[in-house]
Protein backbone atom coordinates (compact mmCIF):
# COMPACT_ATOMS: atom_id res chain seq x y z
CA UNK A 1 0.00 0.00 0.00
CA UNK A 2 3.02 2.30 -0.01
CA UNK A 3 2.05 4.40 -3.01
CA UNK A 4 3.12 7.99 -3.28
CA UNK A 5 -0.44 9.23 -3.87
CA UNK A 6 -1.88 7.60 -0.78
CA UNK A 7 1.07 8.69 1.36
CA UNK A 8 0.79 12.30 0.28
CA UNK A 9 -2.98 12.28 0.61
CA UNK A 10 -2.88 10.71 4.05
CA UNK A 11 -0.58 13.46 5.33
CA UNK A 12 -3.27 16.00 4.47
CA UNK A 13 -6.18 13.79 5.44
CA UNK A 14 -4.92 13.09 8.95
CA UNK A 15 -5.32 16.65 10.29
CA UNK A 16 -8.52 17.14 8.28
CA UNK A 17 -10.13 13.98 9.63
CA UNK A 18 -9.03 14.82 13.16
CA UNK A 19 -10.57 18.27 12.85
CA UNK A 20 -13.73 16.73 11.42
CA UNK A 21 -13.87 14.27 14.33
CA UNK A 22 -13.68 17.15 16.82
CA UNK A 23 -16.43 18.92 14.87
CA UNK A 24 -18.61 15.80 15.06
CA UNK A 25 -17.82 15.49 18.78
CA UNK A 26 -18.87 19.06 19.50
CA UNK A 27 -22.12 19.08 17.53
CA UNK A 28 -23.18 15.83 19.12
CA UNK A 29 -25.48 16.95 21.90
CA UNK A 30 -28.53 17.95 19.88
CA UNK A 31 -27.52 16.91 16.37
CA UNK A 32 -26.29 13.56 15.03
CA UNK A 33 -22.72 12.99 16.20
CA UNK A 34 -21.07 12.71 19.57
CA UNK A 35 -18.14 11.05 21.28
CA UNK A 36 -18.56 7.58 19.87
CA UNK A 37 -18.77 8.47 16.20
CA UNK A 38 -16.16 11.20 16.63
CA UNK A 39 -13.78 8.71 18.22
CA UNK A 40 -14.30 6.31 15.33
CA UNK A 41 -13.53 9.02 12.78
CA UNK A 42 -10.38 9.99 14.67
CA UNK A 43 -9.21 6.40 14.78
CA UNK A 44 -9.92 6.03 11.06
CA UNK A 45 -7.55 8.95 10.52
CA UNK A 46 -4.77 7.08 12.31
CA UNK A 47 -5.58 3.78 10.62
CA UNK A 48 -5.37 5.46 7.21
CA UNK A 49 -2.05 6.97 8.22
CA UNK A 50 -0.84 3.55 9.28
CA UNK A 51 -1.91 2.04 5.94
CA UNK A 52 0.01 4.63 3.99
CA UNK A 53 3.12 5.10 6.10
CA UNK A 54 3.45 1.86 8.03
CA UNK A 55 2.52 1.02 11.59
CA UNK A 56 5.81 2.15 13.11
CA UNK A 57 5.49 5.68 11.78
CA UNK A 58 1.96 6.02 13.12
CA UNK A 59 3.10 4.75 16.51
CA UNK A 60 5.92 7.28 16.68
CA UNK A 61 3.40 9.94 15.65
CA UNK A 62 1.14 8.97 18.56
CA UNK A 63 4.09 8.88 21.01
CA UNK A 64 2.13 6.98 23.69
CA UNK A 65 0.45 3.59 23.38
CA UNK A 66 -3.20 4.16 22.38
CA UNK A 67 -4.30 1.86 25.21
CA UNK A 68 -3.30 4.65 27.56
CA UNK A 69 -6.29 6.69 26.33
CA UNK A 70 -8.77 4.17 27.75
CA UNK A 71 -8.22 4.83 31.48
CA UNK A 72 -7.88 8.58 30.81
CA UNK A 73 -11.20 8.68 28.97
CA UNK A 74 -12.95 6.50 31.54
CA UNK A 75 -11.72 8.71 34.38
CA UNK A 76 -12.93 11.84 32.58
CA UNK A 77 -16.36 10.28 31.98
CA UNK A 78 -16.66 9.17 35.61
CA UNK A 79 -15.64 12.60 36.89
CA UNK A 80 -18.21 14.29 34.65
CA UNK A 81 -20.81 11.90 36.04
CA UNK A 82 -19.83 12.51 39.65
CA UNK A 83 -19.46 16.30 39.28
CA UNK A 84 -23.17 17.07 39.89
CA UNK A 85 -22.69 15.47 43.32
CA UNK A 86 -20.86 18.64 44.42
CA UNK A 87 -24.09 20.57 43.90
CA UNK A 88 -26.16 17.91 45.62
CA UNK A 89 -27.67 16.62 42.39
CA UNK A 90 -27.94 12.93 41.41
CA UNK A 91 -25.28 11.09 39.39
CA UNK A 92 -24.98 12.19 35.74
CA UNK A 93 -27.27 15.21 35.99
CA UNK A 94 -26.41 17.63 33.19
CA UNK A 95 -24.71 20.79 34.47
CA UNK A 96 -24.62 23.75 32.07
CA UNK A 97 -22.64 26.95 31.99
CA UNK A 98 -25.19 29.69 31.40
CA UNK A 99 -23.70 31.50 28.41
CA UNK A 100 -22.68 30.02 25.09
CA UNK A 101 -19.01 30.20 24.18
CA UNK A 102 -18.14 31.18 20.59
CA UNK A 103 -17.36 28.25 18.23
CA UNK A 104 -17.85 25.57 20.90
CA UNK A 105 -21.36 26.51 21.97
CA UNK A 106 -22.96 25.58 25.26
CA UNK A 107 -20.57 23.98 27.75
CA UNK A 108 -21.92 21.33 30.08
CA UNK A 109 -20.87 18.22 31.94
CA UNK A 110 -22.28 16.19 29.03
CA UNK A 111 -19.47 17.54 26.83
CA UNK A 112 -16.84 16.15 29.19
CA UNK A 113 -18.62 12.81 29.24
CA UNK A 114 -18.55 12.82 25.44
CA UNK A 115 -14.85 13.70 25.38
CA UNK A 116 -14.29 10.75 27.72
CA UNK A 117 -16.17 8.46 25.33
CA UNK A 118 -14.18 9.93 22.41
CA UNK A 119 -10.87 9.07 24.10
CA UNK A 120 -11.99 5.57 25.10
CA UNK A 121 -13.19 4.79 21.57
CA UNK A 122 -9.90 5.96 20.02
CA UNK A 123 -7.98 3.94 22.60
CA UNK A 124 -9.97 0.75 22.13
CA UNK A 125 -10.15 0.89 18.32
CA UNK A 126 -6.47 1.64 17.82
CA UNK A 127 -5.39 -0.96 20.38
CA UNK A 128 -7.45 -3.62 18.62
CA UNK A 129 -6.32 -2.67 15.11
CA UNK A 130 -2.67 -2.26 16.06
CA UNK A 131 -2.65 -5.59 17.88
CA UNK A 132 -4.21 -7.38 14.92
CA UNK A 133 -1.89 -5.82 12.36
CA UNK A 134 1.15 -6.54 14.53
CA UNK A 135 0.34 -10.24 14.77
CA UNK A 136 -0.73 -10.51 11.13
Amino acid at each position, binding site marked *: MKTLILRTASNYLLPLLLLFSVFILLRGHYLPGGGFIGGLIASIAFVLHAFANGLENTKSLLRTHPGFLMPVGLTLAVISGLA*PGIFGLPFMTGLWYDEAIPVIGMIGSALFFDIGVYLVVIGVTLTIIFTISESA
Partner: protein
Amino acid sequence: MAQRILSIIGSSIALIFSIVLFSLVWQNGTMVIQAGNWEAPYGITMVSDTLSATLVLLTGILGLAISVFAAGSIVNARARFGFFPILHFLFMGLCGSFLAGDIFNLYVWFEIIIISSFVLLTIGGEKAQIEGAVKYFTLNILASVIFLTAIAVLYGITGTLNMADLSLKIAAIEDKTLVNICAMIFFVGFGIKSAVFPLYFWLPASYHTPPHAVAAIFGGLLTKVGVYAMIRVFTLIFTLDPFLENVLMGVAMLTLFSGAVGALVQRNLQKIFSYLIICHIGFMVAGLGMGSTLALTGAIFYMIHDIVVKANLFMVGGLLYRINGTSNIKRMGEMYARYPLLSLLMTVPLFSLVGIPPLSGFWPKLSLIMGGLETGNYVLIGFILFGSFMTLLIIAKVWAEVFWKKKEVTNPPANFRFFEAHTQREKILILIPIIFLSILSLGIGFGAGPIQALSERISGELSDVSTYITIVLGEKSN
Protein backbone atom coordinates in the same frame (compact mmCIF):
# COMPACT_ATOMS: atom_id res chain seq x y z
CA MET B 1 2.95 -5.59 42.08
CA ALA B 2 1.43 -2.14 41.89
CA GLN B 3 -1.67 -3.65 40.29
CA ARG B 4 -2.11 -6.02 43.21
CA ILE B 5 -1.80 -3.28 45.83
CA LEU B 6 -4.19 -1.01 43.89
CA SER B 7 -6.64 -3.87 43.55
CA ILE B 8 -6.66 -4.50 47.30
CA ILE B 9 -6.99 -0.78 48.06
CA GLY B 10 -9.83 -0.46 45.54
CA SER B 11 -11.69 -3.41 47.03
CA SER B 12 -11.24 -2.01 50.53
CA ILE B 13 -12.76 1.30 49.44
CA ALA B 14 -15.64 -0.55 47.78
CA LEU B 15 -16.18 -2.52 51.00
CA ILE B 16 -16.28 0.69 53.06
CA PHE B 17 -18.84 2.21 50.68
CA SER B 18 -20.97 -0.92 50.73
CA ILE B 19 -20.94 -0.91 54.54
CA VAL B 20 -22.03 2.74 54.51
CA LEU B 21 -24.79 1.94 52.00
CA PHE B 22 -25.97 -1.01 54.06
CA SER B 23 -26.11 0.93 57.32
CA LEU B 24 -27.95 3.82 55.62
CA VAL B 25 -30.52 1.45 54.13
CA TRP B 26 -30.82 -0.42 57.42
CA GLN B 27 -31.62 2.81 59.24
CA ASN B 28 -33.63 4.75 56.64
CA GLY B 29 -35.22 2.03 54.54
CA THR B 30 -35.17 1.84 50.74
CA MET B 31 -33.08 4.49 49.01
CA VAL B 32 -33.35 5.57 45.41
CA ILE B 33 -31.36 7.69 42.98
CA GLN B 34 -32.60 8.89 39.60
CA ALA B 35 -29.54 9.09 37.35
CA GLY B 36 -29.38 12.34 35.42
CA ASN B 37 -32.20 13.73 37.55
CA TRP B 38 -34.77 12.44 35.05
CA GLU B 39 -37.68 11.38 37.17
CA ALA B 40 -38.94 7.78 37.17
CA PRO B 41 -40.25 6.05 35.08
CA TYR B 42 -38.43 7.95 32.31
CA GLY B 43 -34.90 8.03 33.64
CA ILE B 44 -32.63 5.26 34.83
CA THR B 45 -33.36 4.44 38.43
CA MET B 46 -30.98 2.83 40.90
CA VAL B 47 -32.75 1.41 43.93
CA SER B 48 -31.27 -0.01 47.07
CA ASP B 49 -33.69 -1.87 49.28
CA THR B 50 -32.43 -4.16 52.04
CA LEU B 51 -31.93 -7.11 49.67
CA SER B 52 -29.83 -5.04 47.25
CA ALA B 53 -27.82 -3.46 50.06
CA THR B 54 -27.13 -6.87 51.63
CA LEU B 55 -25.95 -8.34 48.34
CA VAL B 56 -23.80 -5.30 47.60
CA LEU B 57 -22.28 -5.69 51.06
CA LEU B 58 -21.56 -9.36 50.37
CA THR B 59 -20.04 -8.41 47.01
CA GLY B 60 -17.84 -5.91 48.85
CA ILE B 61 -16.70 -8.53 51.35
CA LEU B 62 -16.03 -11.16 48.70
CA GLY B 63 -14.41 -8.55 46.48
CA LEU B 64 -11.84 -7.76 49.15
CA ALA B 65 -11.26 -11.43 49.98
CA ILE B 66 -10.79 -12.36 46.33
CA SER B 67 -8.56 -9.37 45.58
CA VAL B 68 -6.27 -10.51 48.39
CA PHE B 69 -6.41 -14.14 47.25
CA ALA B 70 -5.74 -13.13 43.64
CA ALA B 71 -2.83 -10.95 44.74
CA GLY B 72 -1.22 -14.05 46.20
CA SER B 73 -2.13 -16.59 43.56
CA ILE B 74 -2.35 -14.96 40.12
CA VAL B 75 0.80 -15.31 38.04
CA ASN B 76 2.35 -12.23 36.48
CA ALA B 77 1.56 -13.33 32.93
CA ARG B 78 -2.16 -13.10 33.71
CA ALA B 79 -1.81 -9.79 35.54
CA ARG B 80 -0.04 -8.31 32.52
CA PHE B 81 -3.09 -8.95 30.34
CA GLY B 82 -5.32 -6.93 32.61
CA PHE B 83 -6.58 -9.52 35.06
CA PHE B 84 -7.09 -7.07 37.92
CA PRO B 85 -8.93 -4.28 36.03
CA ILE B 86 -11.30 -6.86 34.54
CA LEU B 87 -11.86 -8.40 37.98
CA HIS B 88 -12.97 -4.99 39.22
CA PHE B 89 -15.19 -4.53 36.18
CA LEU B 90 -16.87 -7.76 37.21
CA PHE B 91 -17.43 -6.42 40.74
CA MET B 92 -18.87 -3.24 39.25
CA GLY B 93 -21.24 -5.28 37.09
CA LEU B 94 -22.34 -7.31 40.11
CA CYS B 95 -23.04 -4.25 42.28
CA GLY B 96 -24.81 -2.55 39.37
CA SER B 97 -27.12 -5.47 38.72
CA PHE B 98 -28.05 -5.66 42.40
CA LEU B 99 -28.90 -1.96 42.43
CA ALA B 100 -30.65 -1.62 39.06
CA GLY B 101 -34.22 -0.39 39.33
CA ASP B 102 -34.86 -0.60 35.63
CA ILE B 103 -35.16 -3.92 33.85
CA PHE B 104 -33.21 -2.86 30.80
CA ASN B 105 -30.50 -1.45 33.01
CA LEU B 106 -30.38 -4.85 34.71
CA TYR B 107 -29.79 -6.39 31.28
CA VAL B 108 -26.90 -3.99 30.63
CA TRP B 109 -25.26 -4.93 33.93
CA PHE B 110 -25.69 -8.59 33.03
CA GLU B 111 -23.81 -7.91 29.81
CA ILE B 112 -20.97 -6.25 31.74
CA ILE B 113 -20.81 -9.32 33.96
CA ILE B 114 -20.75 -11.69 30.98
CA ILE B 115 -18.09 -9.76 29.08
CA SER B 116 -15.76 -9.42 32.05
CA SER B 117 -16.30 -13.01 33.18
CA PHE B 118 -15.55 -14.20 29.65
CA VAL B 119 -12.26 -12.32 29.68
CA LEU B 120 -11.43 -13.69 33.13
CA LEU B 121 -12.17 -17.21 31.91
CA THR B 122 -9.94 -16.93 28.86
CA ILE B 123 -6.95 -14.95 30.20
CA GLY B 124 -4.07 -17.38 30.20
CA GLY B 125 -5.25 -19.15 27.06
CA GLU B 126 -4.88 -22.74 28.21
CA LYS B 127 -6.70 -25.25 26.04
CA ALA B 128 -9.11 -26.37 28.77
CA GLN B 129 -9.85 -22.75 29.60
CA ILE B 130 -10.86 -21.87 26.05
CA GLU B 131 -13.06 -24.94 25.83
CA GLY B 132 -14.81 -24.05 29.09
CA ALA B 133 -15.13 -20.42 28.05
CA VAL B 134 -16.79 -21.28 24.74
CA LYS B 135 -19.44 -23.36 26.51
CA TYR B 136 -19.91 -20.69 29.15
CA PHE B 137 -20.17 -17.87 26.65
CA THR B 138 -22.51 -19.63 24.22
CA LEU B 139 -25.05 -20.54 26.87
CA ASN B 140 -24.86 -17.21 28.66
CA ILE B 141 -25.19 -15.13 25.52
CA LEU B 142 -28.21 -17.30 24.64
CA ALA B 143 -29.64 -16.54 28.08
CA SER B 144 -29.05 -12.84 27.46
CA VAL B 145 -30.90 -12.99 24.15
CA ILE B 146 -33.83 -14.73 25.84
CA PHE B 147 -33.78 -12.15 28.62
CA LEU B 148 -33.73 -9.34 26.04
CA THR B 149 -36.65 -10.93 24.18
CA ALA B 150 -38.61 -11.07 27.41
CA ILE B 151 -37.87 -7.39 28.03
CA ALA B 152 -39.06 -6.57 24.52
CA VAL B 153 -42.32 -8.47 25.05
CA LEU B 154 -42.79 -6.79 28.41
CA TYR B 155 -42.17 -3.38 26.89
CA GLY B 156 -44.65 -4.22 24.16
CA ILE B 157 -47.32 -5.04 26.72
CA THR B 158 -46.78 -2.19 29.15
CA GLY B 159 -44.68 0.51 27.46
CA THR B 160 -42.37 0.95 30.42
CA LEU B 161 -39.10 -0.51 31.69
CA ASN B 162 -38.97 0.82 35.22
CA MET B 163 -39.51 -2.13 37.54
CA ALA B 164 -41.73 -0.28 39.99
CA ASP B 165 -43.83 1.11 37.16
CA LEU B 166 -43.98 -2.35 35.55
CA SER B 167 -45.31 -3.75 38.79
CA LEU B 168 -48.26 -1.33 38.70
CA LYS B 169 -48.93 -1.71 34.97
CA ILE B 170 -48.78 -5.52 35.04
CA ALA B 171 -51.18 -5.66 37.96
CA ALA B 172 -53.66 -3.55 35.98
CA ILE B 173 -53.69 -5.88 32.96
CA GLU B 174 -56.82 -8.00 32.76
CA ASP B 175 -55.78 -10.65 30.25
CA LYS B 176 -52.82 -12.40 31.80
CA THR B 177 -51.98 -14.80 28.94
CA LEU B 178 -49.15 -12.81 27.42
CA VAL B 179 -47.94 -11.75 30.85
CA ASN B 180 -47.60 -15.37 31.93
CA ILE B 181 -45.77 -16.29 28.73
CA CYS B 182 -43.46 -13.38 29.32
CA ALA B 183 -42.85 -14.55 32.90
CA MET B 184 -41.86 -17.96 31.58
CA ILE B 185 -39.40 -16.42 29.10
CA PHE B 186 -37.83 -14.51 31.99
CA PHE B 187 -37.66 -17.72 33.97
CA VAL B 188 -35.82 -19.53 31.16
CA GLY B 189 -33.37 -16.65 30.75
CA PHE B 190 -32.59 -16.39 34.45
CA GLY B 191 -32.70 -20.17 34.76
CA ILE B 192 -29.75 -20.54 32.40
CA LYS B 193 -27.82 -17.90 34.30
CA SER B 194 -28.49 -19.38 37.70
CA ALA B 195 -27.89 -22.94 36.43
CA VAL B 196 -31.15 -24.69 37.32
CA PHE B 197 -32.25 -28.03 35.88
CA PRO B 198 -32.16 -28.71 32.88
CA LEU B 199 -30.08 -25.70 31.84
CA TYR B 200 -27.10 -26.13 34.14
CA PHE B 201 -24.67 -28.11 31.99
CA TRP B 202 -22.52 -25.10 31.08
CA LEU B 203 -21.56 -24.61 34.73
CA PRO B 204 -19.64 -27.80 35.55
CA ALA B 205 -18.14 -27.63 32.05
CA SER B 206 -16.53 -24.27 32.69
CA TYR B 207 -16.08 -23.51 36.40
CA HIS B 208 -13.13 -25.84 36.97
CA THR B 209 -11.00 -24.32 34.20
CA PRO B 210 -10.11 -20.75 35.31
CA PRO B 211 -7.69 -19.83 38.13
CA HIS B 212 -9.13 -20.54 41.57
CA ALA B 213 -9.54 -16.87 42.43
CA VAL B 214 -11.85 -16.51 39.42
CA ALA B 215 -13.69 -19.73 40.22
CA ALA B 216 -14.28 -18.37 43.73
CA ILE B 217 -16.00 -15.21 42.53
CA PHE B 218 -17.93 -17.18 39.91
CA GLY B 219 -19.03 -19.82 42.38
CA GLY B 220 -19.83 -17.27 45.07
CA LEU B 221 -21.70 -14.63 43.16
CA LEU B 222 -22.38 -15.22 39.47
CA THR B 223 -25.11 -17.82 39.75
CA LYS B 224 -26.61 -15.87 42.64
CA VAL B 225 -27.10 -12.90 40.32
CA GLY B 226 -29.46 -15.10 38.33
CA VAL B 227 -31.26 -16.12 41.50
CA TYR B 228 -31.42 -12.49 42.63
CA ALA B 229 -32.94 -11.46 39.30
CA MET B 230 -35.44 -14.30 39.60
CA ILE B 231 -36.41 -13.26 43.12
CA ARG B 232 -36.70 -9.61 42.09
CA VAL B 233 -38.76 -10.26 38.97
CA PHE B 234 -41.09 -12.82 40.54
CA THR B 235 -41.80 -10.75 43.62
CA LEU B 236 -41.94 -7.26 42.17
CA ILE B 237 -43.11 -7.52 38.57
CA PHE B 238 -44.99 -10.81 38.30
CA THR B 239 -47.12 -12.26 41.01
CA LEU B 240 -46.69 -15.97 41.55
CA ASP B 241 -49.78 -17.90 40.52
CA PRO B 242 -50.15 -21.59 41.42
CA PHE B 243 -48.91 -22.70 37.98
CA LEU B 244 -45.71 -20.66 38.24
CA GLU B 245 -45.18 -21.83 41.82
CA ASN B 246 -45.44 -25.44 40.70
CA VAL B 247 -42.99 -24.85 37.87
CA LEU B 248 -40.50 -23.24 40.26
CA MET B 249 -40.87 -26.02 42.82
CA GLY B 250 -40.62 -28.77 40.20
CA VAL B 251 -37.48 -27.21 38.78
CA ALA B 252 -36.08 -26.83 42.30
CA MET B 253 -36.62 -30.53 43.04
CA LEU B 254 -34.94 -31.66 39.84
CA THR B 255 -32.09 -29.20 40.37
CA LEU B 256 -31.50 -30.51 43.89
CA PHE B 257 -31.57 -34.07 42.63
CA SER B 258 -29.40 -33.69 39.54
CA GLY B 259 -26.85 -31.45 41.26
CA ALA B 260 -26.42 -33.87 44.14
CA VAL B 261 -26.18 -36.95 41.93
CA GLY B 262 -23.78 -35.16 39.60
CA ALA B 263 -21.49 -34.22 42.49
CA LEU B 264 -21.48 -37.79 43.75
CA VAL B 265 -19.79 -39.26 40.69
CA GLN B 266 -17.16 -36.57 40.16
CA ARG B 267 -13.53 -36.93 41.20
CA ASN B 268 -12.22 -33.48 40.40
CA LEU B 269 -12.62 -31.34 43.51
CA GLN B 270 -13.56 -28.22 41.53
CA LYS B 271 -16.19 -30.20 39.60
CA ILE B 272 -17.65 -31.57 42.83
CA PHE B 273 -18.02 -28.03 44.11
CA SER B 274 -19.52 -26.95 40.77
CA TYR B 275 -22.23 -29.59 40.99
CA LEU B 276 -22.85 -28.63 44.61
CA ILE B 277 -23.49 -25.06 43.43
CA ILE B 278 -26.22 -26.40 41.15
CA CYS B 279 -27.65 -28.56 43.92
CA HIS B 280 -27.83 -25.63 46.32
CA ILE B 281 -29.39 -23.27 43.79
CA GLY B 282 -32.32 -25.66 44.22
CA PHE B 283 -32.76 -24.57 47.83
CA MET B 284 -33.13 -20.93 46.82
CA VAL B 285 -35.51 -21.62 43.93
CA ALA B 286 -37.55 -23.87 46.25
CA GLY B 287 -37.79 -21.06 48.80
CA LEU B 288 -39.00 -18.69 46.12
CA GLY B 289 -41.43 -21.21 44.67
CA MET B 290 -43.24 -22.06 47.89
CA GLY B 291 -44.64 -18.57 47.92
CA SER B 292 -44.65 -18.11 51.68
CA THR B 293 -42.78 -15.39 53.50
CA LEU B 294 -41.14 -17.90 55.81
CA ALA B 295 -39.78 -19.96 52.92
CA LEU B 296 -38.57 -16.81 51.19
CA THR B 297 -36.76 -15.88 54.42
CA GLY B 298 -35.04 -19.25 54.24
CA ALA B 299 -34.08 -18.68 50.60
CA ILE B 300 -32.58 -15.26 51.38
CA PHE B 301 -30.68 -16.58 54.40
CA TYR B 302 -29.45 -19.48 52.30
CA MET B 303 -28.23 -17.08 49.65
CA ILE B 304 -26.28 -15.02 52.22
CA HIS B 305 -24.71 -18.17 53.66
CA ASP B 306 -24.06 -19.74 50.27
CA ILE B 307 -22.28 -16.72 48.79
CA VAL B 308 -19.72 -16.70 51.61
CA VAL B 309 -19.25 -20.46 51.81
CA LYS B 310 -19.05 -21.25 48.07
CA ALA B 311 -16.43 -18.59 47.43
CA ASN B 312 -14.46 -19.93 50.38
CA LEU B 313 -14.78 -23.51 49.13
CA PHE B 314 -13.28 -22.68 45.76
CA MET B 315 -10.39 -20.91 47.48
CA VAL B 316 -9.92 -23.96 49.71
CA GLY B 317 -9.96 -26.03 46.52
CA GLY B 318 -7.21 -23.79 45.16
CA LEU B 319 -5.16 -24.25 48.32
CA LEU B 320 -5.61 -28.03 48.22
CA TYR B 321 -4.53 -28.02 44.58
CA ARG B 322 -1.39 -26.10 45.46
CA ILE B 323 -0.57 -28.43 48.32
CA ASN B 324 -1.22 -31.69 46.47
CA GLY B 325 -0.41 -30.80 42.89
CA THR B 326 -3.71 -32.21 41.63
CA SER B 327 -7.45 -31.58 41.83
CA ASN B 328 -8.29 -35.27 41.69
CA ILE B 329 -9.52 -36.31 45.12
CA LYS B 330 -8.44 -39.92 44.48
CA ARG B 331 -4.81 -38.75 44.37
CA MET B 332 -4.94 -36.34 47.30
CA GLY B 333 -4.55 -37.55 50.84
CA GLU B 334 -3.08 -37.30 54.32
CA MET B 335 -3.98 -33.64 54.66
CA TYR B 336 -4.89 -34.12 58.28
CA ALA B 337 -1.61 -35.74 59.18
CA ARG B 338 0.47 -33.24 57.23
CA TYR B 339 -1.37 -29.98 57.98
CA PRO B 340 -3.54 -30.37 61.10
CA LEU B 341 -4.18 -26.65 61.57
CA LEU B 342 -5.01 -26.02 57.92
CA SER B 343 -7.34 -29.01 57.96
CA LEU B 344 -9.12 -27.60 60.96
CA LEU B 345 -9.55 -24.34 59.04
CA MET B 346 -10.92 -26.18 56.02
CA THR B 347 -13.52 -28.01 58.10
CA VAL B 348 -15.32 -24.69 58.61
CA PRO B 349 -16.48 -24.06 55.02
CA LEU B 350 -16.91 -27.78 54.29
CA PHE B 351 -19.17 -28.44 57.25
CA SER B 352 -20.93 -25.07 57.06
CA LEU B 353 -21.97 -26.14 53.59
CA VAL B 354 -23.47 -29.35 54.93
CA GLY B 355 -25.28 -27.38 57.58
CA ILE B 356 -24.33 -29.27 60.70
CA PRO B 357 -25.87 -27.26 63.53
CA PRO B 358 -24.89 -24.69 64.69
CA LEU B 359 -22.93 -23.90 61.50
CA SER B 360 -24.41 -21.50 58.98
CA GLY B 361 -26.05 -23.94 56.54
CA PHE B 362 -28.40 -25.29 59.18
CA TRP B 363 -30.56 -22.25 59.94
CA PRO B 364 -31.88 -21.39 56.47
CA LYS B 365 -32.82 -25.03 55.87
CA LEU B 366 -34.84 -24.89 59.08
CA SER B 367 -36.82 -21.95 57.67
CA LEU B 368 -37.19 -23.68 54.32
CA ILE B 369 -38.53 -26.87 55.87
CA MET B 370 -40.86 -24.97 58.19
CA GLY B 371 -42.06 -22.99 55.17
CA GLY B 372 -42.68 -26.26 53.38
CA LEU B 373 -44.69 -27.63 56.30
CA GLU B 374 -46.66 -24.40 56.46
CA THR B 375 -47.62 -24.60 52.78
CA GLY B 376 -47.98 -28.39 52.75
CA ASN B 377 -45.33 -29.13 50.13
CA TYR B 378 -44.16 -32.41 51.60
CA VAL B 379 -42.54 -33.75 48.42
CA LEU B 380 -40.41 -30.63 48.19
CA ILE B 381 -39.36 -31.08 51.83
CA GLY B 382 -38.33 -34.59 50.90
CA PHE B 383 -36.11 -33.26 48.13
CA ILE B 384 -34.65 -30.56 50.39
CA LEU B 385 -33.74 -33.23 52.95
CA PHE B 386 -32.37 -35.42 50.16
CA GLY B 387 -30.22 -32.53 48.92
CA SER B 388 -28.87 -31.85 52.41
CA PHE B 389 -28.21 -35.53 53.03
CA MET B 390 -26.40 -35.95 49.73
CA THR B 391 -24.29 -32.87 50.49
CA LEU B 392 -23.32 -34.50 53.78
CA LEU B 393 -22.43 -37.71 51.97
CA ILE B 394 -20.34 -35.89 49.36
CA ILE B 395 -18.48 -33.78 51.88
CA ALA B 396 -17.85 -36.86 54.02
CA LYS B 397 -16.44 -38.57 50.95
CA VAL B 398 -14.23 -35.58 50.18
CA TRP B 399 -13.10 -35.52 53.80
CA ALA B 400 -12.23 -39.22 53.81
CA GLU B 401 -10.41 -39.05 50.49
CA VAL B 402 -8.52 -35.80 50.95
CA PHE B 403 -7.81 -35.68 54.66
CA TRP B 404 -7.57 -39.28 55.86
CA LYS B 405 -6.58 -41.57 53.01
CA LYS B 406 -2.93 -42.30 52.18
CA LYS B 407 -1.62 -39.92 49.55
CA GLU B 408 -0.78 -41.24 46.11
CA VAL B 409 2.01 -40.07 43.86
CA THR B 410 0.94 -37.14 41.69
CA ASN B 411 2.38 -35.83 38.49
CA PRO B 412 1.87 -32.07 38.67
CA PRO B 413 2.19 -30.08 35.43
CA ALA B 414 5.54 -28.63 34.42
CA ASN B 415 6.63 -25.49 36.33
CA PHE B 416 4.18 -26.37 39.09
CA ARG B 417 5.00 -24.65 42.34
CA PHE B 418 3.86 -26.49 45.44
CA PHE B 419 2.48 -24.49 48.33
CA GLU B 420 5.70 -24.99 50.29
CA ALA B 421 7.65 -23.34 47.49
CA HIS B 422 5.59 -20.13 47.69
CA THR B 423 7.10 -17.10 49.36
CA GLN B 424 5.95 -16.19 52.83
CA ARG B 425 3.99 -13.23 51.48
CA GLU B 426 2.11 -15.33 48.92
CA LYS B 427 1.23 -17.90 51.58
CA ILE B 428 -0.19 -15.19 53.83
CA LEU B 429 -2.15 -13.61 50.96
CA ILE B 430 -3.68 -16.99 50.12
CA LEU B 431 -4.51 -17.93 53.69
CA ILE B 432 -5.91 -14.62 54.95
CA PRO B 433 -9.09 -14.58 52.82
CA ILE B 434 -9.82 -18.22 53.68
CA ILE B 435 -9.47 -17.47 57.39
CA PHE B 436 -11.52 -14.28 57.01
CA LEU B 437 -14.41 -15.97 55.17
CA SER B 438 -14.32 -18.94 57.56
CA ILE B 439 -14.68 -16.61 60.52
CA LEU B 440 -17.49 -14.88 58.68
CA SER B 441 -19.39 -18.10 58.06
CA LEU B 442 -18.82 -19.11 61.69
CA GLY B 443 -20.26 -15.71 62.58
CA ILE B 444 -23.30 -16.33 60.38
CA GLY B 445 -23.81 -19.69 62.08
CA PHE B 446 -23.38 -18.61 65.70
CA GLY B 447 -24.96 -15.19 65.22
CA ALA B 448 -27.87 -16.54 63.23
CA GLY B 449 -30.32 -14.31 65.09
CA PRO B 450 -29.42 -11.01 63.41
CA ILE B 451 -29.08 -12.66 59.99
CA GLN B 452 -32.49 -14.26 60.44
CA ALA B 453 -33.92 -10.85 61.40
CA LEU B 454 -32.27 -9.36 58.30
CA SER B 455 -33.69 -12.10 56.07
CA GLU B 456 -37.14 -11.66 57.61
CA ARG B 457 -36.99 -7.95 56.93
CA ILE B 458 -35.93 -8.60 53.33
CA SER B 459 -38.66 -11.14 52.68
CA GLY B 460 -41.16 -8.79 54.32
CA GLU B 461 -40.11 -6.04 51.91
CA LEU B 462 -40.32 -8.45 48.98
CA SER B 463 -43.79 -9.63 49.94
CA ASP B 464 -45.13 -6.11 50.26
CA VAL B 465 -43.84 -4.14 47.30
CA SER B 466 -45.98 -1.03 47.81
CA THR B 467 -43.24 0.78 49.79
CA TYR B 468 -40.73 0.07 47.07
CA ILE B 469 -43.08 1.44 44.41
CA THR B 470 -43.97 4.54 46.38
CA ILE B 471 -40.32 5.35 47.03
CA VAL B 472 -39.30 4.88 43.41
CA LEU B 473 -42.21 6.63 41.74
CA GLY B 474 -42.80 9.26 44.38
CA GLU B 475 -46.32 10.63 44.68
CA LYS B 476 -47.42 9.59 41.20
CA SER B 477 -48.20 6.05 42.21
CA ASN B 478 -51.26 7.12 44.17
